[in-house]
């Protein structure tokens, strides 16, 4: 994102991704949480600079849509809200924004040409690194603490997207095969979460905290 307009677009995209992720972990309405994860997973790959191969991008978008659809099937017959969301979206948003800002400033905060700043090396991908770090921070809570399969799955989907933003920011855009593999992982994770959610719903017993 070197020009003024692309930089603005990049920041807007990052805001959308982080906003979607905050919704995914903090909103109690399940469908909105799934929509949030769809937005984060589908828009996330666009933060990597240079943009990955269109085939890889398409695969990631399709993977995100399939994942969201599979999760929507799971929650179709269940209650619309659950009690497993992390309460306090402002706190989640603040944590994610702080993490993103810290990484962004560490990577690209120094003015161009300043001592210690490598030209174009960490400046361009820092948006992907920042966005990826924010997603990983948001995903940590549901992955470590979630008592619900759905919430765990949402956290894992965000973690996958966050991880590949960090990987893209660190070592460059993914190949189409990597995009396809990540899309497959998103779909398989969603399928497992969907299956587990259905089992828990059918047995009418919430998985106990272990």
């Amino acid at each position, binding site marked *: 994102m070197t020009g003024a307009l692309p930089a603005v677009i990049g920041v807007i995209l990052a805001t959308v991704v982080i906003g979607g992720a905050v919704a995914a972990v903090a909103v109690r309405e399940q469908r909105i949480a799934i929509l949030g994860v769809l937005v984060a997973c589908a828009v996330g790959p666009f933060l990597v600079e240079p943009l990955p191969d269109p085939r890889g991008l398409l695969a990631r978008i399709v993977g995100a849509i399939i994942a969201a659809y599979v999760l929507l099937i799971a929650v179709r017959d269940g209650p619309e809200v659950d009690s497993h969301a992390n309460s306090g979206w402002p706190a989640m948003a603040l944590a994610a924004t702080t993490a993103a800002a810290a990484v962004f400033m560490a990577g690209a905060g120094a003015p161009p040409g300043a001592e210690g700043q490598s030209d174009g090396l960490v400046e361009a991908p820092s948006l992907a690194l920042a966005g990826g770090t924010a997603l990983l921070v948001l995903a940590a809570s549901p992955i470590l603490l979630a008592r619900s399969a759905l919430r765990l799955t949402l956290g*894992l989907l965000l973690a996958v997207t966050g991880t590949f933003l960090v990987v893209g920011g660190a070592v460059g855009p993914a190949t189409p*095969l*990597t995009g396809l593999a990540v899309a497959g992982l998103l779909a398989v994770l969603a399928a497992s979460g969907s299956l587990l959610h259905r089992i828990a719903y059918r047995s009418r017993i919430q998985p106990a905290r272990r």
Partner: protein
Amino acid sequence: VNVPGLAALALGLGVLGLLARRHPRTPWLIGLAGFAMLLLATWTLDRGEPTPFGGEVFVATAYIRLFLVLLTVASGVLTVVAWAASLTPALPGAMLTWFGAASLGLSVSDPVPAIVVLTAGAMVPTLAGLPFGTDHAAGELRRVVRALAVSALIACLATAVAGLVGVLAEAPVPGGAGSLGADGDGLRAGGLGLAFLGAATALGLRAGAVPVHRWVGRLTDSLTAPALPVILAWGPAAFAIVLLGWSKDALGPGANTDALLVERLLVGAVGLASMVLGAAAAFLHDDLAHVVAYSLVSDAGVLLLAFASLDTAALAPARTWILVYVVVRTAFAGWAAAVMLAYGTRRVPALRGWARRSPLLAAGLVVVAVATVGLPGMAVFDARLRVIDLALPDPFNLLAWVGIVVSVGYFGRLLANGVRRPSAEVQQAVGVQPVWPGGRPSRDLGVLRGQLSTAIRLNFGPAAALAVLALAILGLAVAAGAFEGPAFAAEPRV
């Protein structure tokens, strides 16, 4: 046949097997026919021919081809055992799907897509191997899915950190000192150390090493025994092959210096602890499935030691040991399933005297024990010894022998229990010995056909025992260095 073609065939068969899972026989037949086809296809795989696909290059080295061949045989035997025990019919389809993912993941040069493909592939047998319908099983599966996904993500992040360090170190800057500045060496070592620890954590979590083994032990309560090696041996083996190859390249220059000494010692200590404590837990547990699971925890220690050595000289012995590990642990899990099928219990004390009534199973366990522990001069023995010596300094490498001795102990305990006076469960078990309906085959073709059908139904147990013995013998051959395993393992990776 090239790698993407092989993977497409396996994935197609896997999906077919999963779709047919509600039919009583079809998924098993698809499994057996599928693995026979895959054995043939893998045998004729284009060796060393690069196949570009999706921006990556696939190369099936001789080692990968041998690994996949052994996997097809092991999968075929597990299919026989699981069918005999009437276990979940989704298992053959899941194993075929995993095979497809493994063939892709092991042949691609870039570790990131390899790890992702292997992880996605491992989810399928996880989903298919558990008896669903209970909240307990769902809770266990939640834990497995989390462990698989998190280990993969940590490994990918580790590769990213190493990649970033590499990029920064090589980037030219006007001052000419490198992007990392005057403290470049220290920063580089720190970054590589972080990547190394991340990758080791991922491998430990994926393989169920101590202290992140909790999910393995609890999973065993819900998982059927034949599904154990699919999740706990094949997956970690493939993961380790990818990470060992990656570490040699990414952490290579300077990795053998003292820069990563502390990290290496830390991972080595964890590997040693896993090796010893896993074997001790296998010795102490009374549940047969737990014995198998904790023996795999012990093996996870060897994988970590191989990773900790960070020495190119350790790569070939580690890969040799992995070949044996995959086949022999599959035979051990198959043996446990066959014992449970024969005697209807998985409690070791209740299985007293099993070896007296099941000589085939007794022979199978003896062969598994010899192939696992090895004897001086056998490839598996020398390979493990080399890995330990390269990973651990004196005198800590001697401690690893404790783990090996305890491994002998749990096999010895099972065998000693088997030759004692039979328990009530063992005495009352039926279908343990091979039988032929009517005493001998009839000369009347119509009657013979009926006898054959009945004989198949009556001999599921002995057939499973025979299949396990055959696989154990194959494992022993690999452990002895057959099929050019050590030579192929020494060939350079993609």
